[in-house]
């Protein structure tokens, strides 16, 4: 895949994730005990042999910069190619401030224009999957198409892909268009929001959309020009989940308690890389009791944990009951706390004796660095 450039676009609509995405884009959501959502996209690209990747960060930049750094964890700290970060800029000289991310792609077009690669893989970062792009890429090249779409046939009985893109074909298997899944059909072709596109086509599309003023977003530009180009679709057959709402995020995390899912996600086409933290072993103390849980390094656990995902460096003290919950990095759960269907963001502190109960369809969310105490106590 030497001839393919990677682009990851992080300008997402993250409103449905509320508190969890207050200060971070969706791609930076902690996932699976030690990862961020973007790690899957980056690792998939790197494991498939893509060596030049541009990340268009969206406006919540700090979190992105902090996590990606020089790209060392993904072997992307290179002299040739490697990781490129493009942050939004504010143009003081222009009267018309532009809506959307298309202008950002235009401003940073030098990255694509001067790259030696002739094809581009454009992806967003809201899907969790372990995918080998080599087969899809070859299929795209063989088809001679201008644009290649990766989709998956899903049977969505639990409405876990509402709001995602849906790829439509007519009876003869010809591509018709991409729409939004509202849940009208149980069985459909889910767009994984990963597109191969010829570099020349990408530049044409970008310039044309800006000149005509026909689009403000890259996705919009792509969708409106789909009928102009030859489009080919490739079916991905592995596991995929999305994290576009709190409930989907919660369910996607819980999916990895299934050993089949976790072994596919974390090993199938190569490992998932992330920023390292040098956490020591997790210590299970005298009163620890653990059932069906995924637990990262650096934790100290003395309570009861069931059906939960525990991130790095979490402390769970004596007498606690933690069930069906996601506890993020460096949170501290003091003695005799009871949690059920709770998502605790990074560095939260739950003081002694607190009970927090959420609901499977709407888990309770403890915001980043929140300190939660029993009424009347501090």
């Amino acid at each position, binding site marked *: 895949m030497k001839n393919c450039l990677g682009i990851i676009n992080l300008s997402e609509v993250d409103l449905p994730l509320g508190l969890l995405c207050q200060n971070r884009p969706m791609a930076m959501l902690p996932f699976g005990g030690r990862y961020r959502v973007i790690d899957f996209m980056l690792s998939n690209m790197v494991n498939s042999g893509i060596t030049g990747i541009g990340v268009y960060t969206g406006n919540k930049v700090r979190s992105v910069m902090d996590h990606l750094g020089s790209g060392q964890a993904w072997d992307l700290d290179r002299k040739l190619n490697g990781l490129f970060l493009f942050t939004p800029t504010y143009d003081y000289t222009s009267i018309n401030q532009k809506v959307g991310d298309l202008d950002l792609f235009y401003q940073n077009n030098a990255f694509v224009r001067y790259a030696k690669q002739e094809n581009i893989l454009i992806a967003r970062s809201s899907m969790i999957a372990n995918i080998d792009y080599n087969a899809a890429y070859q299929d795209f090249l063989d088809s001679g198409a201008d644009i290649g779409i990766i989709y998956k046939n899903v049977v969505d009985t639990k409405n876990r892909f509402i709001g995602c893109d849906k790829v439509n074909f007519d009876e003869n298997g010809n591509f018709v268009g991409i729409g939004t899944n509202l849940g009208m059909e149980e069985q459909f072709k889910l767009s994984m929001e990963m597109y191969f596109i010829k570099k020349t086509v990408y530049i044409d599309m970008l310039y044309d959309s800006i000149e005509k003023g026909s689009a403000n977003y890259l996705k919009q530009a792509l969708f409106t020009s789909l009928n102009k180009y030859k489009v080919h679709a490739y079916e991905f057959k592995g596991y995929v989940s999305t994290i576009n709402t709190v409930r989907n995020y919660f369910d996607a995390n819980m999916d990895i308690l299934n050993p089949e899912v976790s072994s596919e996600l974390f090993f199938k086409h190569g490992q998932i890389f992330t920023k390292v933290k*040098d956490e*020591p072993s997790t210590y299970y103390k005298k009163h620890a009791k653990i059932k*069906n849980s995924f637990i990262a390094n650096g934790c*100290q656990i003395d309570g009861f944990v069931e059906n939960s995902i525990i991130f790095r460096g979490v402390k769970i003290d004596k007498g606690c009951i933690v069930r069906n919950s996601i506890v993020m990095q460096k949170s501290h759960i003091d003695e005799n706390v009871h949690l059920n269907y709770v998502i605790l963001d990074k560095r939260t502190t739950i003081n002694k004796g607190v009970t927090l109960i959420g609901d499977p369809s709407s888990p309770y969310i403890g915001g980043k660095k929140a300190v939660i105490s029993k009424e009347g106590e501090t």
Partner: protein
Amino acid sequence: MKEGKMIAMLLAGGQGSRLKLLTKDLAKPAVPFGGKFRIIDFPLSNCSNSNIFDVGILTQYKPYVLNSHIGIGSAWDLDRRIGGVRVLPPYTNEQGGRWYKGTANAIYENINFIDELDPEFVLILSGDHIYKMDYSKMLDFHKEKKADITISVIEVPWEETSRFGILNIDDNNYITEFEEKPKHAKSNLASMGIYIFDWKSLRAYLISDEKKANSNNDFGKDIIPQMRMDGKQIFAYKFKGYWKDVGTIKSYWEANMDLLADDNALDLYDRQWKIFSKNRHLPPHYISCEASIQRTLINEGCVIEGHLENSVLFNEIKIKPHAKVVNSVILSGVVVESGCQIYNAVIMEDVVVKADTVIGAPDSETVYLVSKNKIIESE
């Protein structure tokens, strides 16, 4: 000379033959420890945390694992534009090739390396011990005493003094006497094998020692006694804290078990003094519904379905249902099949313990080292 600058020279060539099969394929400093580390991570992390960013690592015995572990030193922030970590193996020259003859000779052979960095002080370390120490405090002491040599010492239990090199000191921490493994020790201060020298004077002694035909070229046996005879100022720096030499299978097992104590003095969870290591990018560990776990350390990539008690588990270990592991150290990649009962064991990397195997007994003192084709009992 760069005033005040200290570099470290880490002696990592030892075999550690008493660790038997554990060091069959790798040098002692590369032996895995504490769930995710190798022994050398402790001195290397200490250097990095003490703001010493130039470290020469002297290798000799089976260096492959050690070399690939150290790499360019990025795990310890020792990948530097100038200096940083350097692996220094023995080499050939016009007179032919030769091995490092002793600790002092290993430094002598690398005088060029040290001269290039041009430090005022040289810290000599060994890659055999488990401890956390701020070397910059020892350097402060060295400067304050205007010492020629500072030797770091630790109080050991009186009944164990006969196993160590013991130093007798006066009220000013001036070293009055050296005793190697004394039967009746006058003090319980043991040398930790950590020295600070002034490079200029050490350099001269290394060169003159090399010329002596009958010298062992060893710091403890030759260099320090000679400097003492010449009236150099030698002081003892008292270190307080956890320090363990993991020389034998038993002490290796004990040092791992020490990590399970609630008041464990080697606090690995201290974020101010992290121990760094090469990371393997494995997912978190999974604990199933059938598992039960007490007082145990577990690491990334493990799948636990059995019973664990008082044990230390490294990476990617599978404990099957109805298997029982007690008081044991299990290295990476091991599979313990169902129905096994394992007590007081050290199980080496990638061993598969077949179903219903019983190793050790609940109330035995013996520690068992389990490798792919044999089991060794500790003395």
